[in-house]
């Protein structure tokens, strides 16, 4: 794989630190309501389903599915190699999804519906949760 590309770093605060440092132990985490079990992403301090303020980060399997994918060709950040931007959907909850990159394969090979597994790219004090294609279970 080529050298890691340029990335804008997230501005870490007390609300999002758990997400951007979850890769330290290799586990993808989302905020989850401790009362009704609803995953909240992006993080917010109150469960919109049940109203509980008891929300805490919890690890998920890290497996998901490509819900949509685009191959970027425009050199926004100076990078000239095409790359895959995807929305990954997670089996833990119907509306749990995030935007990320699918890496480790030619970007044009990534298809909607492909199973993927989280992998982390470390940079400074941030672990970017990216995804690689895997065999279907």
């Amino acid at each position, binding site marked *: 794989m080529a050298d890691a*590309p340029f990335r804008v770093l*997230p501005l870490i605060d007390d609300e999002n630190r758990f997400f951007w440092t979850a890769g330290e132990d290799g586990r993808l985490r989302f905020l989850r309501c401790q009362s009704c079990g609803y995953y909240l992403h992006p993080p917010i301090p109150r469960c919109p389903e049940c109203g509980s303020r008891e929300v805490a980060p919890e690890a998920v399997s890290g497996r998901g599915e490509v*819900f*949509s994918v685009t191959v970027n060709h425009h050199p926004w*950040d100076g990078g000239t190699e095409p790359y895959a*931007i995807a929305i990954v959907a997670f089996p833990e909850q119907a*509306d749990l999804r*995030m935007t990320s990159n699918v890496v480790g394969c030619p970007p044009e090979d990534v298809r909607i519906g492909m199973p993927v597994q989280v992998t982390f790219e470390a940079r400074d004090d941030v672990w970017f949760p*990216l995804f690689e294609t895997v065999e279907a279970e």
Partner: protein
Amino acid sequence: MTDFERRSIISGIGQSDVGRRLGRTGLDLTIDAALAAVADAGLTLADVDGLATYPGAGLGGAGFAGPGSPEVHEALRLKLSWHSGGIEGAAQLAAVQNAVLAVGAGLARHVLVYRTVTESTEQGSGGRQGIGMGGLGMGGGGKVPKMGGQFQWNIPFRAYSAANWLALNAQRHFHEFGTTSEQMAMIAINARRNAGLNPMAVYRDPMTLDDYFASRMISTPFHLFDCDAPVDGSTAVIVSAAEHAPNVDHPVARVEAMGTALRGRPSWDQFDDLTTMAARDAGAQLWTRTDLTPDDVDVAELYDGFSFLTMTWLEALGFCAKGESGPFIEGGTRIALDGQIPVNTHGGQLSAGRLHGFGFVHEAVLQLRGEGGARQVPGKTVEVAAVANGGGPIAGAMLLTREA
């Protein structure tokens, strides 16, 4: 059905020079557009008692914002009963809608509403380099700041632009409904065909399907020709109390209904249905506020910051069923000037330039007045026009009718 919107008319329209790299300030262009609109409405500056704009000063990337309302207020020495500027609301149309609300509430009688961009001059790269960065201001060199807020969830994954975010919506639409690039290309080709009849349009040379596919890929499935063209220009409209209509020496556009709803999550990637986006909600709401139906519409001016957005508006406003915009526009005959529902008769932002929403309002009013010149919808009097702005989690719609 409601009568609230019908208390307002668009009594006048005005536009500055529109073009690439005009090298003039946003305020300078805005004054041109404002004076033209005021005169067109049969008014003087002393009659203007309201002022509204989108998005207000200082927001977004270079050349995106235009002057804020205090700058225009000061430059024109207006005496205002009501004023407003802001980026949060039902897309760029929010400024017009706010004016309609103010007039309907009696807070103002004649509201000057404007939108100004100088993105071509500010991007300054020459040629067709610029693609909107979603107003995030990544350009211009210097150290890139760390990203907080809502954009931390896409920018760090190198999804920098609305071109990327909306490409994900388009890809999902292609996946679910079998939509094709050949179909989507017809939005761009139709726009260019109409721009050829519009002397103000920035791109007027004919475009073939081969030209479309030869344009470089930006973010699949968007080619360069699916992305609107940054320009400099200002558009102004006067929203007046309906009682003013007889004082104007031309037909006016009566406001019939507005759509402002946003029922899904206000997010580019978390909205429940990627294939409809917020247009679904604003479009549906519009028809709850009028007795008219999509069959009554004579012309549709539908936002095309990206070609795909026009397709979603065709669905959201009921010109075709959900998911069927691809087959609907195939071949381009239904959306042509002489088609079932003429779309983007001035060339849209794809070919007439990215006046960012207000170009569609301007064109709708021209068509209702029968002043479209070579691009006037032929063979009938345009009685009803639909206008829509926005994409992703941002959407607003209006229905306008001709009042002679």
